[in-house]
């Protein structure tokens, strides 16, 4: 039997492609000279992810209305603030934050969002991948202070994911362990 790909999976796959492209060289590398082992490269990747998320929510807002639109806007504003926070972190590590792409460049990599359901599925997948990235960073960042930053932002992404899931009519928490159990 030929494999079937659901619309949700297709949207999720597109989101994955977007995020991988954002983190794997699509954006300019951080400028300046990072200290070896500082975690600057990882923070640079997380910043690229954040900027893609801001653009993604802007795309979602075009098809959302009412409460859903209000939540998406609030999340986009917080994602933008997190991007600013990461740029400050990079500067503190001795790295010039990369410039990022234009909104149009990001938009070309997004799936076509025809409905509110499409947008919420896209946002759900985006938040899951962001959350996973920050939790993975906990094992990779060398300094406790850097890990605290990743954990704090990860908690915010978890709240975003929960808010999106509620809009989808799903339970806020998908399970006791979001990306891996003890």
């Amino acid at each position, binding site marked *: 039997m030929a494999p079937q790909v659901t619309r949700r999976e297709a949207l999720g796959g597109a989101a994955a492609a977007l995020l991988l492209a954002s983190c794997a060289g699509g954006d300019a590398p951080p400028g300046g000279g990072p200290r070896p082992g500082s975690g600057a490269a990882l923070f640079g990747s997380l910043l690229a992810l954040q900027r893609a998320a801001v653009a993604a929510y802007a795309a979602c807002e075009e098809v959302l209305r009412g*409460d859903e639109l*209000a*939540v998406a806007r*609030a*999340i986009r504003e*917080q994602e933008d603030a997190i991007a600013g926070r990461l740029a400050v972190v990079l500067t503190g590590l001795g790295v010039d934050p990369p410039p990022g792409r234009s909104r149009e460049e990001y938009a070309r990599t997004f799936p076509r969002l025809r409905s509110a359901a499409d947008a919420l599925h896209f946002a759900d997948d985006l938040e899951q991948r962001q*959350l996973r990235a*920050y*939790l*993975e960073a*906990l*094992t990779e960042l060398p300094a*406790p*202070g850097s*890990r*605290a930053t*990743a*954990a*704090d932002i*990860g*908690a*915010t*992404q*978890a*709240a*975003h*994911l*929960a*808010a999106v*899931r*509620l809009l989808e009519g799903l*339970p*806020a*928490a*998908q*399970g*006791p*362990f*979001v*990306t*891996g*159990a*003890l």
Partner: protein
Amino acid sequence: MAGRSDRELLEDLLALESRLVSAYEAALRRDAVDRSLGEALLAQEREHVAALEKTLGGGADRNPRATVPSPELTGSLRSRAAFASFAERLEASAVTAYAEAASIIRDARLRQPLGSIMACEAAHRVALRDARGERSLVV
């Protein structure tokens, strides 16, 4: 939490989880939380307790289970709105505690799993706010 051993960090988290379990058990007994929501949150907190106990290898050095409800918990059981506010504060404490533990625990293999529980507690906060009719984001 800084300067504490990994075991002490995990025991502190276990104590916090036990408070959450006690709170949801009491709320369900007193109908102070929507049954479906309360049972879902309680089941997940119990999973966290079991995971922490397993990681500690059984026999935590201290008995974290509170046997007498705190006055704050007792007071919160008068209404669903009051309990949701109380539980949200408790969940917020858990998010903070897990974030700190995941950052400073020495055993790097435990950082991501602790982060995954932190994410679950953050989602619980959102669920409790939603139960109170609040759609504002928790950050």
